[in-house]
């Protein structure tokens, strides 16, 4: 049984807002499935349905063959959930938080203590184990939260934006832990709005927008779908941007996109474009700091699939949510 998470035609509405409009996805054992989309696209709703916290209006979802609606108890026994908000008790110590979950999972006191200590150690919280969570930093809370969802050695782990609000160092720590878990055979469903994070971590990706799957596949295949390579040019002097832009437009019949850092990007349909462009810049006496070909980023993927940036989609979704609330 290789398929661990199987979702078909999942629908869910809140009032008149359709949060999920037919989501399909599949996750294989021991892999990380990235559920990617802007805020309000239905990521959290999907996770809440899979974690048996919400009943879907239509469609079917199974975890290890157990239906989330018909057999919630069987599902709950196999899953771990780390939600968007650190679901730990501020008034308890780190160890007590883990002990609480262990005891609720019917572990005997002694085994619970051993398991809690093991996870405290693994998540680098040993120094703060007896301190109340109120005194923890955001990163520590997240790590404790992740530890709490691992107490029962779940087969399936749901991580709903596990790195939101973390600084880069803590973000990488959490990502490393997720990688280690998948290597151990845990199936991870991770939602994120960071395209880069999904790219780094996920074996498979599902891109959703307004409650609908708009693309799925491996990060590499998604990028390939969006089109070939892109040429990136960064002139040494920002004053040269118009001149560089004119040359690129002349070579590709396409106006290059200029980002805030002064980098110009254009689709590289012709295989020799890199070489030709380099020659033209030389001839024109333009000093170039960076020049190269790259696969499209997931930002490009999102832009191509939806015709808008992830940020715009989010703004729209936020307005929808406010209306729904």
């Amino acid at each position, binding site marked *: 049984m290789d398929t661990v998470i199987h979702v078909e035609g999942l629908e869910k509405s809140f009032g008149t807002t359709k949060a999920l409009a037919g989501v399909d996805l599949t996750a294989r054992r021991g892999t990380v499935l990235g559920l990617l989309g802007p805020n309000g696209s239905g990521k959290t709703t999907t996770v*809440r349905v899979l*974690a*048996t*916290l919400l009943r879907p209006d239509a469609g079917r979802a199974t975890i290890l063959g157990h239906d989330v609606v018909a057999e919630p*108890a069987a599902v*709950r*026994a*196999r*899953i*771990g*959930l780390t*939600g*968007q*908000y*650190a*679901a*730990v*008790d*501020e*008034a*308890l110590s780190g160890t*007590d938080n883990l002990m*609480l*979950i262990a*005891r*609720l*999972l*019917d*572990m*005997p006191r*002694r*085994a619970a*203590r*051993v*398991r809690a*200590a*093991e996870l405290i*150690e*693994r998540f680098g919280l040993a120094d703060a184990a007896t301190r*109340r969570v109120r005194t923890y930093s955001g990163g520590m809370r997240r790590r404790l939260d992740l530890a*709490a*969802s691992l107490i*029962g*050695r*779940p*087969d399936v782990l749901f991580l709903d934006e596990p790195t939101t609000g973390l600084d880069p160092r803590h973000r990488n720590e959490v990502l490393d832990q997720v990688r280690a878990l998948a290597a*151990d*055979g*845990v199936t991870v469903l991770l939602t994120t709005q960071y395209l880069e994070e999904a790219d780094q971590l996920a074996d498979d990706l599902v891109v959703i927008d307004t409650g609908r799957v708009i693309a799925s596949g491996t990060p590499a295949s998604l990028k390939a779908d969006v089109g070939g390579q892109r040429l990136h040019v960064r002139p040494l002097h920002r004053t040269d941007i118009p001149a560089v832009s004119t040359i690129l437009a002349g070579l590709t019949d396409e106006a290059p996109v200029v980002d805030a850092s002064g980098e110009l990007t254009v689709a590289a349909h012709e295989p020799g474009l890199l070489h030709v462009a380099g020659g033209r810049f030389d001839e024109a006496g333009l000093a170039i700091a960076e020049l190269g070909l790259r696969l499209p980023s997931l930002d490009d993927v999102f832009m191509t699939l939806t015709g808008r940036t992830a940020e715009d989609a989010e703004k729209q979704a936020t307005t929808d949510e406010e209306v729904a609330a």
Partner: protein
Amino acid sequence: MTTTAVAPGTTPRPPMPIPDIERSRHGPSTIRHGLTLAWRGVVKTIHSPEALIDVTLQPVIFLLLFVYVFGGAIAGNTTEYLQFALPGVLVQTVVFASAGTGVGLAEDLHTGIFDRFRSLPISRSAPLVGAIMADLVRYLTSGVIMLVLGTILGFRMHTNPLNVIAAMGLVMVFAFALCWVFTALAMLVRQPRSVQGIGAMIMLPLTFGSNVFVPSDSMPGWLQAFVNVNPVSKVADAVRGLLTGGPVAAAATTALIAAAVVVAVFAPIAVTLYRKRA
């Protein structure tokens, strides 16, 4: 030295995360898990003393204010008033404290910790049962504080210890019933501040519109009618009887019936709302 067993590297992790945790099961799971969650509530209360204020300092201030500010005017002298008011203040204290249960639950709903509880293979109502069990400990604490303070101030019990225990028991049963009202309220409005506000709107008429502080004789007829059917009055009457002597049976029976009705109505509402919306 259990820690030696978990030194890094000495416990080989199984290659696949199989459900290999030991499990022990004793008794019905709702109660067992409820008790575990009640432990959390009690530890939480001990760790955040500010959460104890509404069951300690607040009733103490109430008692002192009423006895020494109004006591003389109402009963002629403070000693006699204390004798009349203490049993009622005991009831009023737990009514106020039971509203705290609702506020606490509404706060939990916002931290996401209930999502975690609900994603665990435990009974859905265990978190509610746990919160209420933990709060019964708080109510008992405040009841004992009231009795001790009252005794120091000059309150005299004229009955035997069994009656005193019965009085406390009755107050606890009533508090248990009421906290389902505030639990249902918390599940309905979900904002801790709103629970607090609406809770006060329920508690103030319920406690002041009773014979807790003043005998109902001096009140206008329509108010007397309310006071006489107010379960708080009945509980106060029964507790007075149990602590200082006098009739108990009729008031206690009415109070217990009222408590049973409140639980029968509000517990299902609270549990249903919790399952649906939490």
